[in-house]
């Protein structure tokens, strides 16, 4: 898994690439929590180049969403395709995020 973080105005754009399994999820979590601790609360997480995400990865996204919402921000999931998009649909997680 690779991530690229960019900042535009008050939004943080996180582009993720590869597969998100347990260990990757832990890395992603640390990265995102670090950003929240630096007072960033609005995230656009781009999953266009993610080919697989397991429940640990989804847990990270849900956890970050909860923290961001508590602080008046939120997480937008962008670019999900294929099995990742299907996973968001079948798990009804689109109810928990704004999807783009």
């Amino acid at each position, binding site marked *: 898994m690779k991530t690229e973080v960019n900042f535009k105005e008050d939004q943080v754009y996180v582009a993720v690439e590869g597969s998100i399994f347990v260990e990757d999820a832990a890395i992603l979590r640390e990265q995102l929590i670090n950003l929240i601790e630096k007072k960033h609360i609005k995230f656009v997480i781009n999953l266009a180049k993610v080919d697989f995400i397991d429940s640990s990865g989804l847990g990270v996204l849900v956890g970050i969403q*909860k*923290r961001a919402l508590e602080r008046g921000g939120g997480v937008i999931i962008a670019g999900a395709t294929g099995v990742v998009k299907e996973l968001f649909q*079948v798990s009804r*997680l689109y109810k928990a995020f704004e999807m783009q």
Partner: protein
Amino acid sequence: MKSDKNGLLDDRCDYCQRFELLDMITDALLLTHVSDGTVIFMNQQARELYGYSTEESKVLSIFSLSHTSQSTVVEQMKIAKQYAKGYSFITRHVKKDGMIIKVQVNMKYILFHGNKIFAIVIREATQEDKLREEFELAGNVQRRLLPPNMENQYASIRTLYHPRNYVSGDVYDFVFDEAEKLLYGTVMDVMGHGLAAASHTNILKYLFYQTLEKSMPVSEKLSWINSQMTSFFSDGNFAAVFLFEFDFKSKTLTYASGGIHRFTYVYENNVEIIKCPGLFLGIKSKETFEQNTISFQAGDSFFFLTDGFDQWNPQAAGQNINFNSMHETLKTYTATTPCKDDASGLCILTH
């Protein structure tokens, strides 16, 4: 030097410099006979660990050093003979002064100058070893709390439980109501792994048992579990839960799912993947879930699995699609696939 029955003590004289080399090893090392466990050689570290002199060490055996029953030591020796790479375990040994110590033992069955012996490396168990032992114990407890395979006139149930590390965030449970001819069960997958996830499974299992008393549709039971568990799951933790109920009077299966997105249904040599969408539990406290019912016939089988089995191919059984062959492929899957996740499930054959 006196010769023992295998001539090893003569060897020890002939090769005494090799034994001196073993004294340079920083771990405690024992060489013992396979037949009776008597000590052939105890290196300096081991003599220091146990408090024996070289002369005293000659009358010792692995049985006198162990603080477990003779049958346990025999069992450990038997297992060690089966493992080419050596058998590692935690046990208790006793020093010359009577002090009992917890030790990590690595026992290997080797050929030494033509004789079969055990080479045994011993080190005092570290905090990490003790924690590992605790985890193993917790894993055994969790396994014992799960219902075993079941067989009756209505169904055969084969269980699958494969923790990634000692304890699992994926569990299952089921209860058969003989009077009503109902089989009510669940497969659960708490996000994450290890002890935290395993602890959450206990909450879910408790809630599952609570629903046994509730006279409501399966989907409402799932909603109730979700509403109750939300307070226990914070910071993004959530769980996938699949609830099912087989009614053997009407031959119907009713199910509702939150986060376990599919199951496999096998009937008349067909394999069908049934999708069951639903939001994970623990995310929204007032979520509602879909409920579906399908009819089945005797001989149909169902495979309810957590996502640790996601890469399992139900077609792997080839032409020979039946309950046993598919259950075998699932068992093989966990034995041969690198384990990235906990994996549990229930395989149910209806009669």
